[in-house]
């Protein structure tokens, strides 16, 4: 028995992704740097996850992501308490739980890191939702700091030339905004370097995610949820490039050595929507117990989907298109097409959709996507009703039963 325990322990150790430690170190340093920005005469800008961070990096402004904050709040299971606090402030419990919990942290320095560093400016890009506009308005009123809005017209079927022109003009307005609030000229040469690093990081992140085309997959979507942080927060820096290169090397080594994320990978699944941050481990173990690996997801790929629109020789110019054409800013049928491509690419057996009551642009339309996927691919689809942060909307026993039933269908189909 003791021998068996030792071997399963060592197998477990082997399965652990070593880069995790480095990632934690980078994120800790990043938050320390951001929290001490004022002492070092550096500016802090809060920015939405789909927003153009590269000009901030070029201006030496520290970008801080309230959505990443929301994810941390969810993962540290502080959601319900902060949601209740926001409800006392007057925010309806039907609103986005990232926004609610982040807003609740402000006045009390609440949350897992004692509140985000105070912003000097806010940059809001509505390519991910209209909610961020309202959320950033709330924060601009609360902190009394300037707000820049990058308005990226929604592309139901196509992006018009006029829309591209509109976004391009706003990129120029954004640069003027930064020059004004940073008190210095925009450094176009530095921007070129930042653009190159951003592109490189996105390519590396895509390559990392692509390692899961291998059978067994060296990592799962649950790992991707964790390693995603840098492509969101430090895109455009050397740190992100170096880290993803290291992670890619590790993944390639795992592929060579046959080390898998799930011990006996038999079923390969695709995940849709944001993670259920407060239950990632539970879900990961649940699927793993069924020999199922979530090999890919529609969420973490969002930060490298625009690669084809980026012009390496003129990053600034191509930003209008690359920031407008992101996953959540396109029509439901285009989303379904992308999902079908992923099902094919990652050789997926089943599709798990998180109907996330916090995120309407991601969730409304999922029923139609489900129908399209079933009609075009025939793979089984599971819909889980939950929320990314507010665990009060999570019914464990019901979801467990549904996962078990879904896995039974997959096993019968085999």
């Amino acid at each position, binding site marked *: 028995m003791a021998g068996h325990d030792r071997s399963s322990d060592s197998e477990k150790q082997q399965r652990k992704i070593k880069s995790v430690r480095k990632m934690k170190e980078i994120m800790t340093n990043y938050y320390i740097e951001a929290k001490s920005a004022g002492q070092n005469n550096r500016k802090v800008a809060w920015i939405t996850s789909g927003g153009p961070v590269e000009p901030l990096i070029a201006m030496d402004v520290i970008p801080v992501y309230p959505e990443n904050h929301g994810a941390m709040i969810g993962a540290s299971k502080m959601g319900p308490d902060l949601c209740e606090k926001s409800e006392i402030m007057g925010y309806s419990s039907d609103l986005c739980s990232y926004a609610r919990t982040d807003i609740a942290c402000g006045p009390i320095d609440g949350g897992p890191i004692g509140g985000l560093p105070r912003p000097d400016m806010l940059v809001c890009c509505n390519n991910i939702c209209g909610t961020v506009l309202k959320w950033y308005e709330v924060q601009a009123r609360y902190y009394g700091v300037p707000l820049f*809005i990058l308005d990226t017209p929604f592309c*139901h079927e196509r992006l018009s030339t006029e829309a591209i022109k509109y976004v391009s003009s706003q990129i120029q307005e954004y640069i003027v905004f930064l020059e004004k609030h940073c008190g210095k000229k925009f450094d176009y040469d530095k921007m070129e370097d930042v653009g190159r690093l951003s592109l490189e990081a996105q390519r590396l992140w895509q390559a990392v995610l692509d390692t899961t085309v291998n059978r067994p997959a060296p990592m799962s979507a649950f790992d991707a949820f964790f390693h995603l942080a840098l492509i969101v927060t430090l895109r455009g820096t050397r740190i992100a490039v170096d880290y993803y290169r290291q992670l890619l090397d590790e993944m390639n080594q795992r592929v060579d050595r046959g080390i898998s994320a799930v011990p006996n990978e038999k079923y390969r699944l695709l995940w849709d929507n944001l993670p259920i941050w407060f239950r990632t481990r539970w879900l990961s173990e649940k699927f793993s117990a069924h020999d199922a690996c979530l090999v890919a997801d529609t969420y973490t790929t969002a930060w490298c989907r625009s690669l084809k629109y980026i012009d390496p020789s003129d990053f600034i110019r191509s930003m209008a298109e690359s920031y407008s054409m992101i996953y959540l800013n396109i029509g439901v049928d285009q989303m379904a097409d992308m999902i079908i491509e992923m099902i094919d690419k990652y050789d997926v057996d089943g599709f798990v959709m998180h109907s996330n009551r916090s995120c309407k642009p991601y969730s409304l339309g999922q029923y139609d996507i489900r129908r399209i996927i079933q009609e075009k691919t025939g793979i089984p689809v599971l819909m889980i009703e939950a929320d990314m942060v507010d665990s009060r909307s999570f019914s464990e026993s019901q979801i467990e039963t549904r996962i078990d039933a879904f896995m039974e269908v997959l096993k019968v189909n085999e």
Partner: protein
Amino acid sequence: MTIVREFFDIANDPAGYAEKWKVKHDGAVVGYLCSYIPEEIIVAAGALPFRILGSGSTISLADSHLQAYSCSLVRGALEDALAGRLDFLSGTVFPHTCDSIQRLSDIWRLNTRYKFHIDLVMPVKLQAKSAAVYMQSVVDQFKNELAQALNVGISEENLRQAVYTCNRIRKNLRKLYKIQKMTPDRLSSIELHAVLMAAMVMDRNELDKKLSVLVKATGLPNMDCTSVGKRILLGGSVCTRSEIYRVLEESGGRIVGDDFCTGDRNIQGDVDTTGDMIEAVSRRYMTRIVCPAKHSGLLSRGEYLVSIARENKVQGVILLYLKFCDPHLFDYPYIKAMLDKENIPCMLYELEEGPWSGGQFKTRCEAFMEMI
């Protein structure tokens, strides 16, 4: 008044009116989902602009497409379309509004079979010069797309005439608001509500004529009117239920204004009749009282509500929000704080889907009236 009866008939059965209109005029009915539609363009094309608000029927078909956490407007509209209650439409136009209507547009396009589907992806931030340029291109593009879809030409003169008509309509509706506010015995809030509901689906030329008659019939506002009741301002997005007015008045309130996009917000601001018509039309939609799904400053909505509350010397504000309406619900805490600062009491009531049960609303209203 007989003429008011006609508005009630249309408000009670907008689809029936549109069907008859279509047969009589052999014309096209163009459905739209939001008050940001430049309806002047549809009128200039000789078509009937028809605001889709949901008939309030039980949701069953829409459940296969929309989660229960979508608002009743979005679910109700889709239900009507899927159940064939909007089969008289030639096509639909979706101005960019909120996340829910944005996704409804996709779902609608994939699941309905009208002749055309147009997305009007307007700017969301309204102060920037670049947004004004873009807005103009969107409106111009809409004119071209609609002309093509309906196979008609829309000349500058057509557009100018439509602008004149829509401006007169808005002006007369504003007069009616004044009459209802000052002299509710001549035009009650329920009557005005019926006129406003009908005005969003009626043939605009017919509406223009009927409103002139109605304005004359109601006469000038009576400055000496001493109507009883506590002066209440209503706020929110859409208000399709006339029962709300009845309950409010029975509870001791007197409605002196609103901020609904089916009401006052829809009729504020005229289109300049000089210069280029597309530019003039675009300007109205850039500058009219803003919807919370758009941005025109951090305090614009709150300041506007406070100003109309002050102007009308209101004793209380009742905010009627649709459940799951994110843009309005995000604004509530700051708007409430601004009203509190002015010592204006405020009550929030969330309108839920399904058959109206006035009981709870009545209790809340009575308690509120007692408090103020």
